[in-house]
């Protein structure tokens, strides 16, 4: 089942379930850059949203969410770019932003995508406001939509829907509770009462010391005729300028290491081993890739150039894009 990656908030663990129908859904909801989005800080020493650690010795900080543990490392990796892309972002007001994207692709489909983001007025922090509604529609009619809302100071909920043209591919709802030094979340994915299928994911992450956080994930999936569970354990250690995360479970092992060498250089290392055959996502070996993004200063333009070379399969991709606004 494809997962919707958002700038914030819980979403079900990406590769933990062998659900039958999920195809690689195109287009994740991406929040336009530079817009105030409720961002949940992922590294405990910098204080998490809503939790003030006045006395760092006696109070353990909130560890952030389960998904964000690997995210800091993943963000360092360049996006695979191919073809030509033009993005125009327009802020219509403090609350509303709209984006138009035209993609010409060498391998996939070319198209036009329209995205809109609405941020509400209930402000819970200096950069966070709720509710957040993000929607994206393709020229073929595929829709991605998310609504994120902070119900109380500790509870946040999210609803996400993805369609492929007119067919619903992904519909999920989740709820996250942030305690003082722990976070727990429950996600219900693709519940189908008529067929009797669905996926239930429960996450729990606890700060043991200011630097160490341990947690677990339990995935229960059910289809007519079969049901099963997958469990994983997660440990994250944060140093002065590095973060190391390890996930072990029924679905394999995933380890990431993120290092911030100085203000200009950040490094990430990732290792992934899977026990089941991945038919949707492919991890290719011997891939070399790079992306360069440059802001063309007097104009509100950003130019992005990227190239990826897969030595093993001898495949090469290159692309460039321009973002306006």
């Amino acid at each position: 089942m494809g997962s919707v990656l958002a700038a914030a908030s819980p979403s079900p663990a990406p590769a933990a379930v062998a659900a039958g129908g999920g195809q690689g859904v195109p287009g994740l909801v991406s929040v336009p850059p530079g817009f105030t989005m409720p961002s949940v800080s992922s590294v405990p020493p910098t204080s998490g949203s809503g939790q003030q650690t006045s006395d760092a010795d006696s109070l353990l900080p909130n560890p952030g969410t389960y998904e964000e543990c690997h995210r800091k490392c993943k963000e360092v990796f360049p996006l695979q770019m191919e073809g030509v892309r033009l993005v125009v972002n327009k802020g219509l007001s403090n609350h509303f932003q709209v984006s138009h994207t035209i993609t010409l692709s060498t391998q996939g489909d070319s198209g036009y995508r329209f995205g809109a983001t609405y941020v509400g007025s209930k402000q819970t922090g200096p950069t966070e406001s709720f509710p957040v509604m993000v929607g994206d529609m393709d020229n073929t009619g595929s829709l991605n939509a998310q609504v994120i809302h902070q119900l109380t100071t500790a509870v946040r909920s999210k609803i996400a829907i993805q369609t492929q043209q007119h067919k619903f591919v992904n519909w999920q709802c989740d709820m996250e509770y942030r305690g003082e030094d722990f976070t727990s979340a429950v996600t219900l994915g693709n519940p189908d009462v008529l067929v009797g299928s669905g996926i239930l994911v429960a996450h729990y992450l606890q700060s043991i010391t200011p630097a160490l956080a341990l947690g677990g994930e339990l995935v229960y999936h059910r289809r007519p005729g079969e049901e099963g569970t997958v469990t994983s354990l997660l440990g994250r250690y944060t140093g002065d300028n590095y973060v190391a995360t390890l996930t072990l479970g029924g679905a394999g092992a995933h380890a990431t290491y993120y290092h911030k060498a100085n203000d200009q250089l950040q490094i990430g290392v990732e290792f992934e081993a899977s026990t089941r055959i991945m038919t949707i996502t492919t991890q290719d070996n011997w891939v070399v890739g790079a992306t360069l993004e440059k802001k063309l200063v007097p104009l509100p333009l950003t130019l992005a150039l990227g190239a990826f070379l897969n030595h093993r399969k001898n495949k090469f991709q290159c692309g460039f894009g321009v973002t306006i606004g």
Partner: protein
Amino acid sequence: MGSVLALSSGPGHQNWPFSTDPPPSRWDRRDGRLPNPGSFHSLHRSCKDVFPQQIEGVKMIINKTLSSFFKVSHTLHLSAVSPSYYRFHVEHLQSDDYSKDKDAPALIGEMDSSGSLNAHALLHLSERVRARTVFQTQQSQFVTWQFETEYRGNDFTAAVTVANPDVLRESVILVAHFLQSVSSGLVLGGELVYHRGRAEEGGILTLAGQYSRPNWVATLNAGKGGAHASYYHRANKQIQVGVEFEASTRTQETTTSFGYQMELPEANMVFRGMINSRCIIGGVLEKRLTPLPATLIMGAFVNHRGDKLQVGLGVNVG
């Protein structure tokens, strides 16, 4: 009959905008005599230079000038549709007077990472007589070997080319060119191609004419093998436009192309765009990154009929 396949040369190959040379013209004589019309191959060149070159994948070119006679360039090309390669290119000029002239006497060689060689030798045997030799191999097999001699008179040019002479197979291609300046703007000429193989032989005659004014040039080649017409217009210092029409009786196809070149010297940028009747639209942007001696090239070609897109990036250093 196409003769010499173009060399992959570095910048300076197309109308590089920052030169202060006047618009393309032949040798201008102020004494009232007719100028020499140049060579037959360069009749359509000013129009062709306006069109963007098809660019694909990532290409990195490093040019190094070792002395005023000797230039070297390394090219690394990573491509999605064709095999990636490294190419080494070396140029040795006979004298450093004509460094910008395309027909300067030089020895040029290019070697591929697969072993393909491309070698040109241009010699000025005397003030009026030039000779050119071309060898091209595809890995170890010789594809082209040709020898050309050109005589430049006061107001005419005559050239004879012997291409792929093969004594064992008894095959040869002979090409004779003649161009005559008829008036200060008009040039007329022709090309005769004779090819002979073991089983067949034949000849094709093509007539050519070119009329040029200070701002525009119109050229036409017509013969039994097809027609090729081109029109080049320089609108102002920044914009040049070219229109080209090609028809071939062998493939029974015609193509019309429209291209333009826009130069912005203040922004160190050149943009070339084209659209043609095969529903191909393309554009290439070249930008000089000023503090560094580097040029960034970005281009894309879309074939609407076949629904294909080709994207290319390049960096030229030096």
